[in-house]
């Protein structure tokens, strides 16, 4: 599904953002990507959705060889992924349902099928009642649910979440995390970058930890370790 093989990523101004990172995430897995800020979590995700070029090594994402992807094929890759950010990235000038519909429209989906699919994902994230609300009328947790609905509407095989709970209070965090778990339970792989270790400890999922651009721990390969020792 997602396979990094000896991946290096150089900063434009010198230095390495990722050093020789290799891992393999299988279909339907839930993986935490942890580490301090600046450790390279976001960079890993950006390489997955081809927002940054790979400096060397191989990145494969659901059949795409990302390092050799032509610019015109990048949109095709992204339609197979759902992406969620800490800052939601919703369009402020349209209501929730149109924010979700947008992701379908850009793929050229038939208009007749859009409304039904949008309603289905909004129901899935528990926001069917607020379909007409504008982002500014929604709480942070609700906005993140809209963003998740937008990420899901194209039925991606992987959901990438970059600190999805970073801007949320504890209650909203729990809600959003539970939603991501539900999504994973229905078969979608989830890669969640976070530095919230409470969340990581709550669930029995695989943990990949980065430190200054290097992969220092992968619970799938390494010996289990004392969780208290992780940063």
């Amino acid at each position, binding site marked *: 599904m997602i396979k990094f093989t000896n991946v290096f990523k150089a900063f434009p101004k010198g230095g390495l953002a990722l050093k020789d990172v290799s891992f393999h995430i299988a279909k339907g897995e839930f993986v935490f990507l942890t580490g301090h800020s600046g450790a390279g979590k976001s960079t890993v995700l950006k390489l997955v959705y081809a927002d940054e070029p790979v400096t060397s090594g191989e990145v494969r994402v659901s059949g795409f060889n990302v390092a050799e992807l032509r610019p*015109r094929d990048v*949109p095709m890759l992204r*339609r197979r992924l759902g*992406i969620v950010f800490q800052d939601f*990235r919703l369009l402020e000038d349209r209501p929730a349902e149109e924010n979700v519909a*947008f*992701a379908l429209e*850009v*793929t050229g989906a038939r208009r007749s099928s859009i409304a039904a699919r949008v309603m289905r994902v909004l129901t899935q994230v528990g926001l069917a009642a607020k379909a007409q609300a504008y982002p500014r009328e929604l709480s942070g947790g609700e906005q993140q649910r809209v963003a998740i609905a937008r990420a899901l509407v194209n039925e991606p095989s992987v959901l990438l979440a970059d600190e999805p709970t970073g801007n949320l209070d504890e209650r909203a965090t729990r809600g959003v995390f539970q939603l991501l778990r539900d999504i994973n339970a229905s078969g979608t792989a989830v890669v969640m970058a976070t530095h919230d270790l409470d969340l990581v400890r709550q669930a029995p999922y695989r943990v990949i930890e980065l430190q200054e651009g290097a992969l220092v721990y992968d619970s799938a390969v390494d010996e289990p370790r004392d969780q208290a020792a992780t940063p």
Partner: protein
Amino acid sequence: MNLTIREALLAFRRAPLLSALSVTTIAFSLFVVGLFGLVAVNLQEALRGVAERVEIVAYLLPGTPIESITLAEKDIEAFPEVHSAVYVSEDSALARARAELVEFRDVLQELERNPLPASIEVKLKPRFRDAEHVNDVADRLRGFGFVDDVRFGRDWVEKLDRLRQIAAAVGLVVGAAFAVVAIIIIGTTIRMAVLQRSREIAIMRLVGATNGFIRRPFLLQGAIKGMLGGLVAVGLSYGAYTLINRWLIQAAFFSNVQALAIVGFGTLIGFFGSAASVGRHLRRV
């Protein structure tokens, strides 16, 4: 396509102030071009009026039989450059002189013999009213056996030529400069519209929109803004023209084709300006 139109029109509703500002900027840039165009059109009109008076007169030897003259008249009218060739007999020349030269009426009245020769007055088609063609036709007229002398205002025709060249050169250079300035200003305005929506563009890319999909509403929007700007510019020019006409001088306005060209120019700048701005933006992010 449906979506392209919707997104393009939505942009006007979402950012009415910026949209209005773009249209106004485009309108005033094109208005300046339009004003200059008006000057050019009127200068051209004035020159055409002057050029209309370019005339070649072939004086005929006395006693030339009228049959030869009629034939020659036909021949001359068949010249590709010639608009009309009119025979003026000795008598009508005198009658005209009497009518026109009032001061000499008495002298002309007392003449025993008509001193004025008969002539053929030749007018050229508008596009041949320059020194080269006038000389050329004059030479051919001299070739007729019964033509005594050929007259035309040589200096005057040459000066007219020069004036025309200057007008054309100034028109081209100043017109091009104005057009370039308009393009730059309009390009900047469009760039602002693109930057204003850069967040939206980033999100569109994130959810897998192709560059073409992102670009299309901008192109349509740019073309619409350019067209509206062009229409307003023509309107403003018409206002200026009306004022000038009422208070200053009798002036000419654009022909429909010229007015349409201004609107078309605005539309094209809007379209290609957007294409350049969005293209640059998409390449950079």
